């Protein structure tokens, strides 16, 4: 299944988006985003209103790209790079903003996101966007692709790269994730880190916490405040190199 995109339709009536976006009347306003991301995100937003799940993912995306991932715009094809797979493809606004802030995509690509000639869809396409490792949108595909990526790197002796897959707590409803969780745990796929952004959106919840679905299968886990950059950094570097690792980033339901 898919989730509806966080983006409301772009205002009609002109190919060129307006300059500074007008202030929205919503109260309270959107949560603060990391400084370097604010400009690109505002440019991408172009007057539209973003849903809570855009903001719930930006902090962990920023910590990943700013402090964790061994990847730069110059190394997007380097076999030895870390891999980041955005499985919840609808969290795309923050993703594009972070990629722009880090120089993977030109800022002017942000101005026509979703337009007929844009490379930036409402879900990301790896063949269109530099630095994007997978095309996603239909939930429950990223973790399996991440397992395969980790296995492929290992089979080729590439033991340095780590594979990070970002999912949502509602995305865990998809059974395909549990195929991947069980297998990665059983085989000790140590180069894999799953990041679950938990904004309590799973319809039937995860009693005991989302992390328990991983730890029951032999993963290590850390559950942290998804807004706390230092806590995220600590958790995202907390793997033991023997087992797959999951970071559950808990964010408010705003």
């Amino acid at each position, binding site marked *: 299944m898919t989730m509806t995109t966080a983006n409301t339709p772009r205002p009609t009536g002109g190919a060129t988006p307006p300059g500074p976006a007008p202030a929205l009347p919503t109260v309270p306003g959107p949560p603060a985003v990391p400084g370097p991301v604010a400009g690109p995100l505002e440019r991408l937003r172009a007057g539209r209103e973003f849903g809570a799940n855009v903001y719930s993912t930006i902090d962990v995306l920023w910590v990943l790209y700013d402090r964790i991932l061994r990847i730069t715009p110059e190394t997007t094809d380097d076999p030895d790079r870390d891999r980041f797979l955005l499985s919840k493809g609808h969290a795309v606004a923050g993703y594009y903003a972070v990629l722009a802030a880090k120089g993977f995509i030109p800022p002017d690509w942000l101005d026509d996101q979703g337009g007929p000639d844009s490379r930036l869809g409402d879900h990301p396409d790896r063949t269109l966007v530099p630095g994007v490792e997978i095309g996603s949108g239909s939930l429950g595909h990223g973790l399996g*692709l991440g397992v395969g990526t980790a296995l492929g790197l290992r089979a080729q002796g590439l033991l340095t790269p780590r594979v990070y897959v970002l999912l949502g707590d509602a995305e865990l409803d998809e059974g395909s994730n549990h195929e991947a969780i069980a297998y990665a745990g059983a085989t000790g796929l140590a180069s894999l880190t799953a990041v679950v952004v938990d904004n309590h959106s799973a319809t039937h919840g995860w009693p005991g916490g989302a992390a328990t679905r991983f730890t029951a299968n032999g993963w290590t886990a850390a559950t942290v405040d998804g807004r706390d950059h230092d806590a995220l950094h600590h958790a995202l570097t907390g793997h033991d190199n023997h087992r797959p690792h999951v970071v559950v980033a808990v964010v408010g339901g705003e």
Partner: protein
Amino acid sequence: MRQTFVDTMTDLLAEDPRTALVLADISAAAFAPAAARHPERVLNVGIREQLMMGVAGGLALTGLRPVVHSYAPFLVERAYEQIKLDLDHQAATAVLVSVGASYDRAAAGRTHLSPADVSLIDTLHGWAVHVPGHPGEVSALLRDAVAGDGSAYLRLSILHNDRPHGTDGALTVVRDAGPGAPLLVAVGPVLDAALDAVADLGVTVAYTNRPRPFDTAGLRELAGTEVILVEPYLAGTSSRVVSDALADRPHRLLALGVGHADLRRYGSAEDHTR
């Protein structure tokens, strides 16, 4: 055919470090020696077909050449969205190899039958489909598919013809009834049965084990105004291809193959071939 696949795939894993094999328990025992020699490239994920295809996509993204193998309904039907998204949408490619074609396992009932597999692959773009008609055709088809860089579906069956035929994909004339005769195209293991059926009729018979891409040039060359398709999967699967190829030529087409109905009959594969 299955044993030929196991033997050839085992050789390929030894010959080419770019190859990998992804299994979901089916045939795992047959590949145990290969798994022991190449534990990082023979990957049995257990009974998890979604993961099997996702893993193949991930392997391909790192530059490996994955071969994915299971029973046809589990390989193609159960994991169809993963084929569409984890392979095609990622611009990743793989070679899928099935056993249990159509009604090979008739006694197992509907759950193990997959006559729609080629139709499903037809909904995708750019796939080659190989349907060997004899175990002797399997090895070359597999080697060619793995050596290529596109996606391919290799459909193995327990049914087969008495002897192997050409493997380059072109329509091969097996029986020539002369100019103007109706053309019968038999795909894979149904060739011998088709030949028997028209033994007393003035019908030219051509064979292919590569229905996709279909040899449309060969078809145009051999066909007059009457074409009979005999395919070992859903009847009419290639009707569109034939009609497109002959769009500029008034013609009649009879398409034979497996029906859509759940027969709820058991028995052997031979019991269902008629």
